[in-house]
């Protein structure tokens, strides 16, 4: 029987959750014995190639490209996990949700104190994905099966969650892995 496949992606996140995944250190060797990685920034595969058992989503949705990727994951993964606070709640990027979109764009490209833009150009290349009206947590866009809180969730949390899912055991995270103060 072929190994279950795992795909990962970072949407409107900082890649901190992926760094945390790499923090499982040498356990990554035992992980790749048990699973095959499909689409992921870690192996740089651009699109999901076949049905995956698990999709790990870092970050919420701030633009149309995020939504497209999330749709691809939902369509091709049996289980989707929102990893970290941005995927779960929108996180830091969602701080813009109370500021009009035009103001956000102007602050980024024209009026911000560190901006150098003598021609006062706001880039409009069609390659740049359109921003959404606000930043959405993933579960408002697609159905999410599990949530792993934390900023980022610790390597031990990720490891415990993945091994529990792969062995079909119920996931019981000890208190130490869920408190952050």
């Amino acid at each position, binding site marked *: 029987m072929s190994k279950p496949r795992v795909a990962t992606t970072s949407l409107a996140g900082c890649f901190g959750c992926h760094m945390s995944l790499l923090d499982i250190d040498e356990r990554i060797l035992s992980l790749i014995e048990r699973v095959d990685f499909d689409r992921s920034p870690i192996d740089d595969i651009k699109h999901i190639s076949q049905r995956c058992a698990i999709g790990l989503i870092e970050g919420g949705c701030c633009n*149309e490209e995020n939504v497209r990727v999330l749709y691809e994951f939902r*369509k091709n993964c049996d289980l989707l996990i929102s990893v970290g606070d941005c995927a779960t709640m929108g996180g830091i990027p969602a701080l813009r949700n109370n500021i009009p*979109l035009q103001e956000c764009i102007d602050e980024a490209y024209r009026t911000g104190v560190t901006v150098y833009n003598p021609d006062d150009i706001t880039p409009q290349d*069609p390659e740049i*994905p*359109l921003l959404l*009206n606000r930043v*959405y947590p993933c579960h*408002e866009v697609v159905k999410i099966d599990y949530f792993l809180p934390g900023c980022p969730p610790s390597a031990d949390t990720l490891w415990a969650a993945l091994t529990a899912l792969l062995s079909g055991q119920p996931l019981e995270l000890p208190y130490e892995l869920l408190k952050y103060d």
Partner: protein
Amino acid sequence: MSKSKSVVTEICNRYGNTRVRLMDIVRDVQQELGHVPREAFDLIAKGAHTHRVEVESVISFYAFLSERKKGDVVIRLCDDIIDRYQGGEAVAEALTRALGIGFNETTSDGRVTLEKTPSIGMSDQAPAMMVNDVMVTRLTPELIPGLVAKLRQTNDPQSLVESYGDGNNAHALIRSMVCNNIRESGAVILADYKRERGLRKALTETPADVIADVKASGLRGRGGAGFLTGLKWELTRESPGAEKFVLCNADEGEPGTFKDRVLLTERADLMIEGMTIAGYATGAETGIIYLRGEYAYLRPYLEDVLNRRRAGKLLGNGILGNAEFHFDVRIQMGAGAYICGEETSLISSCEGTRGDPSDRTPFPVAKGYLVSPTAVNNVETYCCAARIMDQGAGWFAAIGTQRSTGTKLLSVCGDCARPGIYEVPFGTTLREVLRRAGAENTAAVQVGGPSGQMVGPAQFDQGISYEELATGGSMMVFSNDRDILEIVEAFMEFFVKESCGYCVPCRVGNVLLKSRIERIRQGDGAPADLAYLKKLGESVKRMSRCGLGQTSPNPILTSLKNFQPVYNALVREDKTGLQKSFHIMRAVEEASVIAGRRSEVFHA
């Protein structure tokens, strides 16, 4: 500024320059100046020996207080599901057309401000509105242009009252068009009775014997929670404290209830007699009637009743010749906050602060008003107590059921031919109540108001009692033509607005519950949403600190239980795993306009 300065100083002096009377002070300033200007905050704080932040927090908390200048006349249209179903929306539209302004706006001449307000206790004569303190009931869109023209002409809200209602509504100190709508009187409260006989009998007994009588009668609190009144009085009496207090909760804010309105109009003496008996039993010398701001039109009358009783030695020092017994009552006006019907909030409000609830324990019987032992009872409870002393505990206990003795006043409103007040013995079935009220094709009844439960025909044979269908009095009837989830959403909107915001489960949870109901109503719901509603609703109930949050999910939880098919018909399992409530084209619309191009990803 000099005018407001002298006004504020005078008002602060009037209330003895104490922070405990801050509610009265800011209410009077508002009355005098039309608003409480920011510049006056420091003056009030100084005059009441408190801090500016206390003044500001009180003004921002209560709906009827405002630092913003409003029109000379403020029209508050009752925005309640009952009013809406009786044509309230058309009335709202007629008002905006006649005044030429929208809601929360003031006419350019500064004369009229238009607002909406939750239930004002007129559900039996809806739609209704308050014009300053004047109640105008049974509105129709056709009546509005004439009313507005008259108001423009006279600038006097009282001029809108063309004929008076029945009974004391026509009293020289009330002069209101409100009707009592007493449909059925029972043996206890609305029956004819001999004035002061209960008080006289009580004074021949020891306070302990009075408490024993009330306990033996089985009387339970009529506000809805049903605590044993005799036990409450006993605990108040036994709690250590130099001073004790008797508070009367006349803040009936539960949408759909109006029975206290009728009692305050027709049975004020009986109520105060009951309070006086409570004062005697508990050892309190001060009573406070907390009167909801919406019932300000009854205040001059009630003050007159109090004065008359003082003159007749029924209040004051040495009541009825009993040299040992002193008791007097003051009226504390509320200012438009539903939460103040919760007893700890009511106490906070009487103490001149925001109507924030406080933790129980300690219960008010141990540490209530001014940290002293306090018995807080409903208007109707005091009326019952006076009648029990008159007629005897056995007489009272023989009425009703074993665990719910006596009669209950029901405020029946909504889709029925005869809305109004029904005094029925406990144990009367809901079906019987509906029959008497002339309700046909009834789909649902909200028993006990939004914080109570929504029941369907399967529950109609249950009795009105603490053990089956508990209610503080509100009975809202909805026919088959009504949309159950529209009603539920309206109730959730009410709780979102009335939450004091202190604790997260209530402040945030109610918003989440409401938005999920909206999603289901829009046809974007999935079966998982129903499980979510149930789980979140239970969390809000369990984790909130006061009665508001502990009951606010009830419209959802009880309708989920009793009207499951209605929900099931609206939700659909979705195999794609996409959320139907997320609309990508809507989400990118704004950026698309800014960029001047369409979505490359999603625009096929």
